[in-house]
């Protein structure tokens, strides 16, 4: 089943004279983990807003084409609140999303809006606190928390509504590396345990490339590259660098040194070490010339 099917989607904000999205065609399988990246202004955020219905319901503009969830729900025909248990959205700045006085209430807020009864709400709050490993934050105020903790609370509040698709727009942009890794690892775990479809917009390709099923690269409102990370980093590195996408350093080093060998492009430092040791063996065998 396709969790998301986008056909011929173009969008122009009412405040702008140029198209933010130009004829986007994209299908995402249920359970798939997809990374969207690209330079500033490429349309990543706009595309996210089209998946959760903020476009066309909240942001006005010219809208062409269609976005269909789970083969039947046309996003432009349903108000965002009707989509709340289908698509959950996490933003770059958790402070813009959190506003209640305790973490527990923050999580319960969305559930109240879904109209769940008290018992069910309690169960879901417990479940999601445990799932994210944040029981100890229960009675704290969101503003007392670190950036990484806040982002986990934002994710918990969204996950509590049991959406089938989770869309995250640069959720780690303001976090230090360890907190970012922590949030990303949490996402991976959630995805496995809940079989949820995850679409994440990020610049941190070094952290995400080894984890995602597919990388989608956008530039100037269009999708220009789409494929699994190994395919993308073995074929498209020069193009990605040209448009301003930060390619993991091990992929760049591989391209400079050993892409002529038969080994696959490495996505992590550990993989790079294996590939280079293998290349050394080959070199020794052929008396020093690079294969």
């Amino acid at each position, binding site marked *: 089943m396709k969790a998301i099917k986008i056909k011929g989607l173009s969008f122009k904000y009412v405040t702008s004279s140029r198209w933010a999205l130009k004829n986007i065609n994209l299908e995402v399988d249920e359970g798939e983990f997809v990374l969207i990246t690209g330079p*500033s202004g490429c349309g990543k955020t706009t595309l996210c807003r089209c998946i959760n219905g903020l476009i066309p319901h909240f942001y006005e503009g010219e809208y062409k084409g269609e976005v269909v969830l789970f083969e039947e729900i046309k996003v432009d025909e349903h108000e965002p609140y009707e989509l709340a248990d289908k698509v959950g959205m996490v933003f770059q700045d958790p402070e813009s999303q959190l506003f209640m006085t305790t973490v527990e209430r923050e999580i319960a807020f969305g559930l109240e809006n879904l109209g769940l009864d008290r018992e069910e709400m309690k169960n879901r709050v417990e479940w999601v606190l445990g799932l994210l490993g944040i029981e100890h934050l229960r009675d704290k105020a969101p503003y007392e928390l670190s950036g990484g903790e806040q982002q986990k609370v934002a994710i918990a509040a969204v996950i509590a509504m049991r959406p089938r698709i989770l869309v995250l727009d640069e959720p780690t942009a*303001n976090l*230090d590396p360890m*907190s970012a890794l922590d949030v990303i690892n949490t996402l991976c775990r959630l995805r496995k345990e809940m079989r949820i479809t995850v679409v994440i917009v990020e610049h941190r390709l070094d952290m995400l490339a080894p984890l995602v099923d597919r990388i989608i690269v956008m530039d100037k409102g269009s999708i220009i590259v789409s494929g699994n990370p190994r395919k993308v980093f073995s074929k498209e590195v020069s193009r990605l660098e040209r*448009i*301003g996408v930060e390619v993991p350093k091990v992929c760049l*080093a591989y391209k400079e040194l050993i892409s002529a060998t038969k080994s696959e492009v490495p996505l992590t430092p550990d993989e790079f070490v294996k590939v280079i040791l293998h290349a*050394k063996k080959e070199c*020794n065998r052929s008396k*020093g010339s690079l294969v």
Partner: protein
Amino acid sequence: MPRRNVIEVRDLWYKYPEAKEWVLKGINLTIKEGDLIAIMGENGAGKTTLVKHFNGILKPDKGYVKVCGLDTREHTVAELAKYVGLVFQNPDHQIFASTVLEETMFALKNFGWDPERAKRRAKEVLKEMGLLDYINTSPFSLSGGEKKRLTIASILVYDPEILVLDEPTVGQDYGQKRRLAEIIERINSLGKTVIVVTHDIEFVAEYIEHVIVMSRGTIIAEGEATKVLCDDNIMKRARLLPPQLGMVVKNLEDYIDFKGNFLRLPVFVENLRRWLENDENVKGI
């Protein structure tokens, strides 16, 4: 000739009014004229609080900070700002004028420059930052990357000796980061001192050789990026991750003695190329 100290921090303690905990706990630090330094550490380590002492926005509770010989406790922010230009993390906290040109000229007006001369100087800097086409535009309609360059322009315009950039790479894509690095390198090559506060480890690995690492209000390490950023113990304490090339180097240290700043891709590649082409047999391979 030995370079003079432009920033001296001695046993600096600071806590925010009404807060219980010290944010800075006995910081000692010397920065020399012409240095290019990264101050790194996790969110909340005290990095921003420290650099706010460099232009006197904050004053020490204990200890002292001297900027170009001036004790910050005895001078106003306006006096100190002539020496230290601080570019904040969030451009929206800094931008307020109605056009890009006015924003850039603001400091010069305050310093009493003749308007025509100020305009010429502002245009010069805006050209350097690639913003000349926007002089009559409202700063608020600029993109995130452009706003960042505007805030740098509005500091560079009065030519301070020391430039402090707080998290300049947040929200910037790779192309914008590269341009930012070029700007930093150019300013530094003119003899200016540049201090970059950041937790963008790959940015530092690629462009900055000298690193200070903070954790919980103290400095836990200072030195060459190739040493500090590859030290697991320091990285763990500071909640940072080593750069990718650093992790590779560590895993290969039994086989290869890397020379030079191997955190920079060309140097890293050259080290490995030489090793691959050297046909001596390596133990264990």
